[in-house]
């Protein structure tokens, strides 16, 4: 699966909403998936929309948490607390 063809330079951004349970869980899940499947070949930015609400507007974020794969293309969005690891990996590895 994704492990077999890891993408170099994986750039991720996770939008969360303060300490909402789903957001807290999403951060933990994102970090776990990255360290387990992408090791050092990734960057993960976490944006708290409660601190910077306009960011949601600019980036078009509707629900929290939302994970966005910025690179490599194409841009892919994953919503939810990322507890469904298979779905996350599938989305990140999608061509």
């Amino acid at each position, binding site marked *: 699966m994704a492990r077999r063809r890891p993408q170099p330079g994986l750039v991720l951004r996770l939008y969360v909403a303060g300490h909402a349970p789903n957001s807290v869980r*999403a951060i933990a899940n994102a970090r776990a998936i990255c360290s387990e499947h992408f090791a050092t070949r990734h960057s993960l930015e976490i944006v708290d929309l409660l601190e910077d609400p306009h960011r*949601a507007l600019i980036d078009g974020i*509707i629900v929290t948490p*939302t994970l966005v794969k910025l690179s490599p293309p194409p841009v892919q969005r994953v919503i939810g607390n990322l507890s469904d690891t298979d779905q996350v990996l599938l989305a990140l590895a999608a061509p």
Partner: protein
Amino acid sequence: MKIHSQHPSVAKVPTGIQGFDEVTGGGLPARRTTLVMGGPGCGKTVFALQALVNGAHQKEAGIFVAFEESTRQIIANAATFGWDLPALERKKLFFLDARLTPDVVKAGEFDLVGMLGLLKAKVQEMHATRIVFDGIDVLLGLLDDPALERREIYRLRGWLSRTGLTGIITQKSGGTDVDLRYGFLQFMVDCVVVLRHQVVDGSGFRNLRVMKYRGSGFAADEFPITLTSDGLQLSHRGPTELAYAVTDERVSSGLPRLDNMLRGGYYRGSDVLISGAPGTAKSTLAGMFAAAACERGERTLYVSFDEGAAQIVRNLGSVGIRLEPYLKSGVLRMYSTRTRGPNIEDQFGALRDKVRAHKPRCLVIDPLSALSTKVEHVASADASQQFLDFLKIAGITVVNTSLMDGPGTAEETATGISTIADTWIHVSYIVQDGERNRALTIVKSRGTGHSNQVRELTLSDDGATLTDVFVAQGKVLMGVARFEWEQEEQARGKRVQVAAELERLRLQLAQAEAAARLQVVQTEMEARSAEIAVLADATGSASRLLRTDHAVLRKMRHADEDGRGGRRKSGRDKGAASTRGGRGRR
């Protein structure tokens, strides 16, 4: 804790939706949440958007969160209602496109915390007081878990009450009023508005009903709504006060003799109903009214159903009613439409728009029955009544024609317009001696004396005219029968005249004869008188002579009798003479 007054009055914000604010006594509950439910195509989005736009017009900023349609689509749709959203958007309105793109992958639970954070910031920035969540079920459906969906709804509701916004949440409902999925929502919110779309006999009707309104009275009936070019409109059919200005001014019917029959014409601002079978010149009468109004320079609107404007102009032209010049000058506007079009409420809505746009003083609806008898539904009669009330309040004089076919419907209309009409003119056919003639009667006319006589209506190249009808031998005579009767009457008259002349001559002769006879008699009398005088003279001297003789005789015979004997004797002689005469005659 703050103690509230015994009767806390719910503050309300007007929606600006015609009729809705009246029904709810002021609009939506301020700083509270209203649920707008309904099936597809009921107008939920329009209702919510209209409340928002009208707020924005009153300097109340609002936010529209669209989960279902793109904001671009919504703005385009709003443009059809004449709402310039882009202009309002700059300052007073904000649209959030809250649709997820189809390629989004779902990996676990999510929530609205981030979005509400964004909205809170936006509310503070804009000082917004109203917010709409349109089609939130689209997003929450992705959670695929009723418990989680409910959790987010509660979150939303909590957020709304914390922020103190006047909120509208739209919600889809199936065939039943209570939707199982979000049924709880109805109990949570302060106000529930139910929109319904129903089909009766193939015609669609939209209705609105206020199901719940915490802390406020409201009219609980279902009200017909229309989607007009100004947006949603609610026809308030509740007990409305019939308050409108009344005038004594008369408006010509376009037919001088009809004006006479009505003692001066129709009242300004009244409803006139012209009923009759097909082809009884109802349209002609309506056309004459329109032409007369235009000639006076009054703006006139001619609404026709199932017949094109050009055709009507041509047909009226054939009886000498020329409408083209007025159409060109813009005094007259014609609006033709099909009856089997959009639903009846929408049709009346469209008519209202036309009336508002043209601002006529006189209006013709030809025929009104096309609209109202279309569906045997209480709403259709309601709709026409409301429309007529609307015209009445606007002071517009209306001439409606109404088709009545079949012999059973001689003087009744199915819709009950006849009770609303102030003046009712009925044109019927009278078939007699192989002819159909039009008979016009005034069935009623409120507030005016009117002729109760039947008149014959004839059409010629110069328009319609009314003629007196002849009543002969208990029958009303028209057409050829009348002509024949007239001829016969004339002949009869002539005969009588001649007879009278003859009689006059005869009498004159008799008089002359009598006078002549009188002359004869007089002369004769004079002659007799003279004769008598002569005779008297003669007998006078004779008796004197006789008396002298008697005296001489007595003297001579020394008689002692006093002359009585002599008289007796002469009497006896007389009797004997008569006896003798009698005998001689036998």
